[in-house]
């Protein structure tokens, strides 16, 4: 079984992020790390291939610079190879362009029985790329999977919903987006880190893949303004005169939690 995982390399969330004031986009020029939300997909893929008893896990990723640190982490976890679409022209790409580029990268690897993505990235939070990617690839799409099994040529997934989960089946090949918690990602092993250095990363441009237009030119959106998040309003302090519980109950009722 061959699985392709879409992974994003993002600025380290532990460091303070900054916006590029000329484009109003997140600065991504420094070291990029594997988006934690993608580590679940990588782990899921590794477990499925392992269970199937053969095949390999490949990665597709897209970045405006040639950064590979995040890909190395996923390769060190056990993925076999990667296609990195690295092209300054990609700066400003919207979600649909991203889906087109990733679809072309998936096609370049070819032969995927399953494509896995996270539900959304931890730096952009658009949350639409997996579904768009499925559409471009012409694959059935199952989103928000919190449990995944493969039974022959059928995918069985538990799909997280607001009040429980749906049990869904679909034929392979397919695309799934997985939630955090679908599996517990492994830490790269010492030997895996050593091996990752020699695993192939096929670095291509959008032009190599024949995707045009990309970047700002291909975007169906523009950033018109950026505003600071509003300061958090001060909380209300309730003196407990013996009736404090009633105020807590009414507060929770207003929030519709009880």
């Amino acid at each position, binding site marked *: 079984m061959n699985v392709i995982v879409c992974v994003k390399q993002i600025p380290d969330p532990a460091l303070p992020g900054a916006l590029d004031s000329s484009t109003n986009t997140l600065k991504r020029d420094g070291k990029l790390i594997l988006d934690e939300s993608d580590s679940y997909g990588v782990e899921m893929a590794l477990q499925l291939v392992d269970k199937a008893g053969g095949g390999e896990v490949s990665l597709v990723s897209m970045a405006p610079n040639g950064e590979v640190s995040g890909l190395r982490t996923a390769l060190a976890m056990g993925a076999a190879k990667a296609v990195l679409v690295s092209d300054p022209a990609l700066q400003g790409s919207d979600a649909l362009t991203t889906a087109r580029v990733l679809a072309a990268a998936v096609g370049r690897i070819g032969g995927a029985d399953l494509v896995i993505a996270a539900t959304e990235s931890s730096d952009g939070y658009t949350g639409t790329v997996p579904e768009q990617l499925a559409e471009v690839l012409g694959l059935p799409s199952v989103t928000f999977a919190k449990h995944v099994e493969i039974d022959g040529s059928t995918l069985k997934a538990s799909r997280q919903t607001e009040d429980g989960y749906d049990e869904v089946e679909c034929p392979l090949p397919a695309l799934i987006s997985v939630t955090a918690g679908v599996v517990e990602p492994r*830490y790269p*092993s*010492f030997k*895996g*880190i050593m091996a990752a*250095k020699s695993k192939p990363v096929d670095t291509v441009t959008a032009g190599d893949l024949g995707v045009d237009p990309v970047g700002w030119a291909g975007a169906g959106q523009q950033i018109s303004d950026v505003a600071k998040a509003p300061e958090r309003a001060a909380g209300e302090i309730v003196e407990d005169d013996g009736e404090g519980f009633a105020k807590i109950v009414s507060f929770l009722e207003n929030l519709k939690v009880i």
Partner: protein
Amino acid sequence: MSDFVPPVADLSFVLRRLAGVESLTGLADFADVGLESLADLLSEAGRFAAEVVAPLNRVGDREGSRLVDGGVVTPTGFAKAWQQYVAAGWAAAPFEPQYGGGGMPWVVAMSIYEMVSGASTAWALCPMLTQGAIHLLTAHGDETQQSTWLPKLVPGEWTATMNLTEPQAGSDVGAVTTRAVPQADGSYRISGQKIFITYGDHDMTDNIVHLVLARTPGAPAGTRGISCFIVPKFVLDAQGRPGPRNAAWCISLEHKLGIHASPTCVMEFDEAEGYLIGEEHAGMRYMFTMMNAARLGVGVEGVGLGERALQQAEQFAAERRQGRAGGSAEPVAIVEHPDVRRMLLTMRALTEAARAICAMTGVAIDQAHHDPDPAQARRAQARADLLTPIAKAWSTDMGNEVAHLGIQVHGGYGFIEETGAAQHARDARITTIYEGTNGIQAIDLVSRKLPMGDGAVAAELYAEIEATVESLGAAGLAPESAALAGSLATLRAATAWLAEHRSTPDDVLAGATPFLRLAGFTVGGWLMGRALLALDGEDEAFAARKRWTASFFLTQLVPQADGLLPAITAGAAPLALP
């Protein structure tokens, strides 16, 4: 998210630009281990330390290890973290590939250890002690012992302990009374009590291998009559699996000032089955073969704890608002106050200097063990021998000073346990004591190490420091150059005085501790000076910070050590009771 950010950038800088770790690839043993992956290795090890180990630090301190029905129960999460550590292969990283190891240089293992130990010293002690046992068995075990125990110990499937101390035999190991009686089948029966045995029992693995110092019948008194034995918690069955329970029991746990999570056991051996390592009466010599590596490990703990205390103090100082500065109307973050900045910068500079000293010591240990040219290997061994007591004692003295400054930065909040600042100081306290007290290290430095090669080993180091004095001057760094020159002159004067007074050992011993402190500041100043000269091509923000700390260390901290000369050269008389 973790409250510990692994200092990957500084570790990487120190390894590449000061210790010259890339040059180790020129040695056959390290040619193919993958040192070109060093940056990835450090960042993944750091991530593991921050995400898996660091969250155990507080819970470990609060819960502590407990003795329940004859077995030690470690705090919540300790066992799972150990399994993850083993699964990821970190335990095996520095050891022989033939036993499943990764073949990494010791200096790289120590960099990883700094991060793991900074994350949780109490947790990290378990792999630390196991490493010592692996070194000893690799060097002195016979083929059967090596093939029996190393494939389990190297990956960390089982852990090991070092059983030296007895109630009457602490720093004076020669006073050991534990007995070992030979049996017809070639094994021994070990009986006696050992104290202060770190991770002497725990619930993280399904066997524990104790290395025990004991006396055979008729053995000479003192250190020359001590032999070293393997005593497993579970004797192995015919398939090499843990079988019958051996009579090696933890009978109580110490209540300690710090490292609460690390079980410090009183071990009772009651005719326990044991196997002699090497020859009878050679146990102390075997222990000494791994002493440099283990002592360096403790020095590295001082660095790790210093880094942890520093990070916490920096964060607190950026958030805590008290007092006004620069005409501000509102209270400012306390980091704006010059005296708080001095404390933080002192913490940072001491930590970085200690890190550099430990890395230089580590790379010398690697060269000594792996350079095929015997002359080069001997030279490296001498350098490692000279630097080891400084790396151990100065780094842990500074680790304690840094952790206490960390409390001071917190003000009253540092004195209460909730902030966690006090834990770092409590945990750091043991590091100046175990693996040879810092007083013992100072005695080792002045009475064994300085006289090596009739003073030539120290003189060679001093000549290198002098070269850096000149390079700093040539680079236009006059104040830094002058400070290092002053400290070097003091160190040379102190060394000469000690050499002249060798015939009255008490005079030499009386000045041992201040001498070690002076040597630490001078060697630290040398390496911070070399750092100033090695910033070309480094990240701009990193270079700016390094200039800041290195200049501060050289111009403000190093000169303080010059004032130690009167104490070093006063002799023993002023210490006599009036």
